Structures are given as structure tokens and as C-alpha cells.
């Protein structure tokens, strides 16, 4: 136990944790959205995320930015980030839609029991992972330098870098957009209706298939943006990178209360913080253990998560 280290670096650890947590939160939205309408954990969502990490790199290479190139001009960086976000979001969204079509919709037609959906989910996840391994290799793929971390300001002695600001701001922005889409638009109300009472939603004229496809698409778009931020933050990805972040995002979703959009944000940030505080305390080898201890404890003592179902309006 290294309590002194934790105390001395508390602010720094917290800032790093928030940036990572914001990424978890964006990925967690995909689990929570799909769970909301289908009561299904889409285990292939981790590969939907990985799609975005590779789409980002392919976009960079496409416009001629290699892994060892120096940081381009600010204007170029901004344009690149916008372009990469669009490409990654669309790629992840497309893969999410494909997963729904191929792995789940045929099962819904046959009224398959929940366990079959779960098996199909794991299967889809493995198939996608191996496809990426086949075409992009099994080694780490380096992203390249887009942002040179530079301290912008200091809070409670913690240096906050431009990269961290960018990550947290983009993630929160995406979540605000999603939240208002779900609560304000007609299609969003359709999503909420299906999640609260599928039969009654059909009686209102809501096309359930379209709503389900929409939740996969939205989850995919969020995962795509998360993937860009992930690439920025860690600078490297891999065909199997989705496994760990997928499980952590799933933990974040459960922690906040699965099916609850604001819960995903809360769960993601908390998990990011806990991981960083925990690894300072126990050593970095314990980092991943912390997330899963969290998952087990939440499932044992409060399976509905922190916000749970109490926030009726915030539920999808």
C-alpha cells in the first residue's frame, strides 16, 4: 500500500482518471442503449469500438500521416480529427448495424431464448476480432502524433493537458447530444417507449425493428468517437483492444445502472477515477483487477447500479 503516493498525486491521478473514464462512458452508452430496448448485453460492442480505432488509423494513413511523422499544424490537426471522427463513427455505426442484422434479428424472428442471444453475441465478437487480426495483423498498431500533450492549466496542483481537455469535452458533448436526441426527438421518444413497454410502444405505432436498429447505430456512433479519443489517449491499438475496454465499459454501464444513459456517464467517470486511484495505491499490476472487483461487488450488492431505475426519466 502506497498511501503517500496516492495522496501526493491525488489531483493528477484524478485528471488522468477522468479522461479515461470519459472514454469508458462513451463506450458504455452502447451497452446501455441496446440493453434498454432488448434486455441484451451486446458483447460484440467491444469490436464495434475496435472498428473505430482502426478506422481512425486508416483515415490518418489515407491523408498521409504516418506513425512517425511530426505533429502537423493546428488547423491540419483539427481537420484531421473531425474527419477521423466522422469516418470512425460511421464505420463503427455500420458494423453495429451489421451485427444487429446478422447476429440478432434472425433470432428475434424465431423468438429465441435469451441465452441463445448471448451465445450469438459472443460469437459475433470473436468473428469480428479474428477478421481484424487477419487483415490488420495481431501486433500493436501505432496511431501517430496528432497532439503533443501540453499543460494548459493547473487545478489543485494537477497539470491538465490539451489532450485531456479535448477528450473530456468531446465525450461530454457527444453525451449531451445523445441525451437530447433521446429525450427531445420523436425517434428518441420511440426508443424510450420501446425500452419502457415494448408492446405498448407497438400499439402507439412505433416500428420496433427500426428502433432497435437505431439504438445499435447510436451506440456504434458513440463507440466510434470513443475510438478516436482512445487512439489519441493511448497512441496504439490492436485487434483485441476491445476486450478489456469493452469489459470496463460494460462495468461502467452496470455501475451507473444499465439502461440509464446518465448512469453510463457516471459509471464511466467513477470507474476511471477508481482505477487510477487504485493503481496508485496497490501498484499498476492491479489496475484491471480493480474494474472487475467493482463489477462483481456491484452485481452482488446493487445490481441496478448507482442510479438504477430510480431516475425514471433518465432511463432510455
Amino acid at each position: 500500500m502506497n498511501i503517500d503516493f496516492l495522496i501526493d498525486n491525488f489531483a493528477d491521478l484524478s485528471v488522468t482518471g477522468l479522461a479515461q473514464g470519459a472514454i469508458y462512458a462513451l463506450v458504455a452508452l452502447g451497452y446501455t442503449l441496446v440493453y434498454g430496448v432488448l434486455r441484451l448485453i451486446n458483447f460484440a460492442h467491444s469490436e464495434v469500438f475496435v472498428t473505430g480505432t482502426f478506422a481512425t488509423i486508416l483515415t490518418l494513413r489515407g491523408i498521409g500521416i504516418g506513425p512517425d511523422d511530426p505533429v502537423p499544424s493546428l488547423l491540419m490537426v483539427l481537420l484531421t480529427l473531425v474527419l477521423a471522427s466522422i469516418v470512425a463513427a460511421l464505420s463503427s455505426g455500420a458494423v453495429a448495424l451489421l451485427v444487429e442484422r446478422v447476429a440478432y434479428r434472425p433470432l428475434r424472428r424465431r423468438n429465441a431464448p435469451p441465452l441463445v442471444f448471448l451465445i450469438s453475441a459472443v460469437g459475433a465478437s470473436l468473428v469480428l476480432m479474428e477478421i481484424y487480426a487477419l487483415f490488420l495483423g495481431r501486433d500493436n498498431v501505432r496511431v501517430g502524433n496528432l497532439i503533443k500533450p501540453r499543460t494548459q492549466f493547473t487545478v489543485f496542483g494537477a497539470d491538465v493537458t490539451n489532450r485531456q481537455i479535448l477528450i473530456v469535452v468531446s465525450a461530454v458533448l457527444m453525451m449531451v447530444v445523445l441525451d437530447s436526441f433521446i429525450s427531445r426527438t420523436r425517434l428518441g421518444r420511440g426508443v424510450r417507449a420501446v425500452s419502457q413497454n415494448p408492446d405498448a410502444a407497438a400499439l402507439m405505432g412505433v416500428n420496433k425493428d427500426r428502433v432497435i436498429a437505431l439504438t445499435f447505430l447510436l451506440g456504434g456512433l458513440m463507440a466510434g468517437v470513443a475510438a478516436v479519443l482512445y487512439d489519441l489517449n493511448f497512441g496504439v491499438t490492436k485487434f483485441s483492444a476491445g476486450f478489456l475496454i469493452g469489459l470496463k465499459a460494460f462495468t461502467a454501464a452496470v455501475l451507473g445502472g444499465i439502461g440509464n444513459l446518465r448512469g453510463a456517464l457516471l459509471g464511466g467517470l467513477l470507474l476511471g477515477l477508481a482505477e487510477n486511484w487504485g493503481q496508485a495505491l496497490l501498484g499498476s499490476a492491479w489496475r484491471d483487477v480493480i474494474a472487475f472487483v467493482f463489477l462483481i461487488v456491484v452485481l452482488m450488492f446493487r445490481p441496478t447500479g448507482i442510479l438504477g431505475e430510480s431516475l425514471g426519466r433518465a432511463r432510455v
Partner: protein
Amino acid sequence: MALLEITDLSVHYGRVRAVHEVSLTVAEGEIVTLIGANGAGKTTTMRALSGLQPVSSGRIHFDGEDITHLRADLRVIRGISQAPEGRGIFPGMSVRDNLDMGAYARRDRHLTRAADLERVFTLFPRLKERSRQAGGTLSGGEQQMLTIGRALMARPRLLLLDEPSMGLAPMLIGQIFEILQEINEQGTTILLVEQNAHRALSVADRAYILETGSIVATGTGSALLDDPSVRAAYLGVA
């Protein structure tokens, strides 16, 4: 021509036969009721009509169109709206949002919503008082009003009502049935499923009696009210 025409409708849950060769018609402007004991197949018939339950055999025609296998949401667009039995509301949405969901399928909802809301609030002043409250916090009776009001927001040509009196206090039941007659007089055709046979037969133009999945009697509401065997079986009068 009948607005709704059901011909030899059968529905199965797995191997269990729930509805067997049921035929019935509802003409434009009528109130028709389908009465029967618990488990007679009333709710199953309703679910088949609104497309929630697949049909094993038989046909359903609405306004001349075969809708037997039409998707549920498309039936709403055709003008069939159902107030489902029991807790058919959206518990996490406000009363107001629940009512708005009723107009989900209408293209002209922006033009008609204010007038339709006003109409529902006139019929059910209670809903107006509670309009900001989450649907799940309403009492059973208020939830019942909400499902009926929500179905009206769709401006249906045919309103399907599943057990609107279930679990309500007698005074409230009287109110609901008065409101149903009012809605009908305003031009909505109604198919009403009820266990409360006396009330249902009193307001209905015509009625069908369902027993273990089959129709065993039909006639005008008043004729069935006077029928000795119906009185004995459904009205508790010897």
C-alpha cells in the same frame, strides 16, 4: 360494409388453443362488446387484432383491407388504436409524454395535438391535474384513464378497449362507461372487451359472448341482457 371483419380467427400459444374460429364484425359507428369469463380468449383476440399476437388461421379485414399479417405499427397508421389492459402505460414518462406517444404515428400531430389534448383533458380532468407526474406514479384508475386518453390521441377510426373497468371503483366504472358513450357519439367506432357484462351490454349496440375461445352467443346488447341463460351465466341473476 363492416369496418372490422374477423373471419374464422384462431390463435395458439404454442400448442394451446386460445381462440378458435372466432368470427365477428363491427360496423362504422357501433359499440360492439366481446364479453366472457377470465381466460375465455378476449385479450388474445385483442392482441391478434392489434398485431401483437400472430394468428394461426383465419382473416382480419379492416375497412376492406386484409390486415391479418400486417405489422402492429402499420395497423395504428390505418386507424386502429388499442388501450391495453392493465398497466399498459410508459411508467417513466410523464402523463403528458404518455399522451404524446398516442399521437406518435400521426403525420399531422403538430396541428392536432393541442385540440386532442384538450379533448382528453376535458374527458379526464384528473389527467390534466397530473400531467407532469410520471405515469408509473398514478393510481390504477388513473393509469386506466391514461391508456384510454392515449389511444384517443391517435384519433382512431376503431378504438379497441381491453377491460377498461378492471380494478376500478364502481363509481369510476360508471364514469368510464359514460365517457365511452361520449367518445362513440363523437364518431369513434368501439370494440370493447369486458368481464363486467352488465355494464358492457348496457352501452353496446351488439355483443358477442366468448367461452373457452369460441363465440357461443351473439345479439343486440339489450337482447342479451334479457336472455335468461346469459343472465344466469354472466350477470349473476338466476
